[in-house]
């Protein structure tokens, strides 16, 4: 294993470039600490020539958003026969599109907040007001607005009053053409990382998220100190088991591979709701997966080195 040379792919052109670069740096350091040789690559036009000239044993995709999570980069790696850590291109596409992932899991019987997906064109053609009114009467208030694709809570917003909805739609649709509106479930917000081990996927301890402002938005995510975390989450044994099972179920049902992170909320009545899943979890200083790894008494480098071996062996 110590002879392995891996390329950590980060950066890219998505809105989450900055976060991805920080993830890539941290992951690279973790892999070096367990003896791997690591090259850090930006996902740019030189990717193909680098793949051919460097011939890494495996690529680790630390890209967030866009091409790194929608399966595009994975498809390239598959076509060029390069082993890589992470979910395959087709399952990436399914997980990346939040409404698709929700629909798959709802069909399998998992709880997820009620939702509506609409493109800008529908509002334009039918008139915004009646459609927004119907949205509010269907989902109630407060509701959650987010772009149907993307991460780091970019463009996401809790809407508590119907009057806030039109401007919130404009803000959300700046990130994409389609909006996902969800019933807002209040409760304990958790993130659960799932890692593929020799005996199948297992959940790391859930990390509970308590943002000072009450909303886990971009600022709360990436400003150290603005959110308190509990790892493991302050859940009773039943709920802790349930969130772990939900995350593993999402990982399996969506066909995810190696590592994923499921965001969920435990409602006051104990129901565990699936919110979304991430095939390339953040690995920055303020990210949730490293906290879960630490809470599990494991090391990020060892986990990813193990995933590199799995990728090479596939």
């Amino acid at each position: 294993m110590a002879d392995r040379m891996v390329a950590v792919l980060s950066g890219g052109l998505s809105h989450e470039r900055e976060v991805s670069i920080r993830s890539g740096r941290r992951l690279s350091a973790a892999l070096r600490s367990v003896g791997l040789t690591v090259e850090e690559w930006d996902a740019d036009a030189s990717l193909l020539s680098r793949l051919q000239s460097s011939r890494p044993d495996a690529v680790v995709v630390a890209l967030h958003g866009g091409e790194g999570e929608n399966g595009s980069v994975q498809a390239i790696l598959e076509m060029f026969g390069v082993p890589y850590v992470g979910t395959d291109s087709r399952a990436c596409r399914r997980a990346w599109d939040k409404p698709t992932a929700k629909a798959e899991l709802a069909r399998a019987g998992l709880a997820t907040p009620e939702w509506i997906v609409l493109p800008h064109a529908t509002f334009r053609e039918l008139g915004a007001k009646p459609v927004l009114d119907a949205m509010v009467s269907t989902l109630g208030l407060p509701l959650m607005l987010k772009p149907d694709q993307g991460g780091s809570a970019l463009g996401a917003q809790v809407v508590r009053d119907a009057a806030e909805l039109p401007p919130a739609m404009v803000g959300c649709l700046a990130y994409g053409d389609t909006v996902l509106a969800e019933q807002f479930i209040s409760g304990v917000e958790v993130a659960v990382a799932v890692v593929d081990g020799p005996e199948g996927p297992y959940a790391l301890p859930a990390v509970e998220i308590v943002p000072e402002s009450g909303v886990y938005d971009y600022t709360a995510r990436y400003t150290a100190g603005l959110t308190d975390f509990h790892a493991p989450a302050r859940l009773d044994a039943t709920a802790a088991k349930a969130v772990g099972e939900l995350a593993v179920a999402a990982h399996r049902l969506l066909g995810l591979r190696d590592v994923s992170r499921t965001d969920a909320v435990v409602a006051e009545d104990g129901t565990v709701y699936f919110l979304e899943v991430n095939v390339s979890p953040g690995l920055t200083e303020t990210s949730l997966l490293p906290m879960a790894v630490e809470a599990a008494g494991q090391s990020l480098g060892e986990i990813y080195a193990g995933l590199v071996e799995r990728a090479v062996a596939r």
Partner: protein
Amino acid sequence: MTMPGQPAKQGPRSLDPHLRRYAARTAGMTASEIRALFAVASRPEVVSLAGGMPHLAALPLESLSAEIGQLVASEGLVALQYGSAHGVPLLREQICDVMALEGINGHPDDVVVTVGSQMGLDMVTRIFCDPGDVVIAEGPSYVGALGSFTAYQAKVVHVAMDADGLVPSLLREALEACKRAGQRVKFLYTIPNFHNPAGVTLAVSRRAEILEICRSYGVLVVEDNPYGLLGFDGQTYPALRSMDPDNVVYLGSFSKTFAAGLRVGWVLAPHAVREKLVLAAESATLCPPTLNQMIVSRYLSTQDWKGQIKTYREAYRERRDAAISALEQHMPQGSTWNIPDGGFYVWVTVPEGIDTKAMLPRAVTARVAYASGTGFYADGFGSRQLRISYCYPTPERIREGVRRLANVIEEEMQLAATFGATPGRQLSGPQTPSPDTA
């Protein structure tokens, strides 16, 4: 299945154990969606009309390299040593020669060399402003200056400009209002030439009046003049400092006329103020980088620096022309902009209903970046404005960038028409100075 590993740790965890210790002035220092978006803007695929980065490709790098090599070889023991907080004496003399081009008769003893004029701004604010004091600034104003004023907890009162720059009657009104409200106004911060971000120049006919108004209200003038030598036709304007040496603190910079990365600027201040600035500089940095000061000094001694400024001017004029012709060709109806006679920037007003800060993610998706207008105001104005910097990209890239921007605005107009609203939620984070926004 159970997970492997050791028993987990319990208890809440803050990722910043120092959170309760920070000073109140750090309140706005948070992660920012805007900054995250600008991370993408630095990629070559994106046409960045956001950054105020000078066109350094116009520099004679080979001869500079030789000069710097010789400097280290012949004077390395001085160049690499601590120096005086006041600055290298020869450079201070040369700075007076540079300022003379704009009518300033300064004495080298009254020049304090700074780490870019940003440090000058910081020091001037530090020695004059207590929390709650008022600084008058043009609206809009340089984002880096607003950052300094905020850091010292000063309150910024903006005064509007028109095509001839700061409007004297509005300045008087603002000062009168502050007086009535019992507010202590410490200084007027002004960029008289080729304003950042507004692109306008203060009419010569207004200069004496502005100075007179400030004197009559007992308000100091801080004149920030990084672009004064970059008028496209070579014309310079009399510096405010040249007209009222005792009541004007002047900030100058080599960032736009030579090389921004050297971080060499200066303050020219009345004698007593200069004494305070030297002491403030000592506590901030001990001394500005000696090597960089000597590089600038040698450059001024051995190179055709006036010729270089002319080269810069011509390059920027070509870029300005590209930006303006592309704006005329592509921008949707309802957009307006000024045509600058020098400097780096065009200030654009977009059609009603659009918030340029909220539009930025769409622009970055379309591979174009700009600086949204609200960053240039301390009071939330500017949502319909944006700044285009034409200084760095090639004319072809500028044209392409403006074309992309126009499409983005068209799409945003459709969105505004659909929902009849501009976004209530703002992207998080202030626009603090950085190579992309400064």
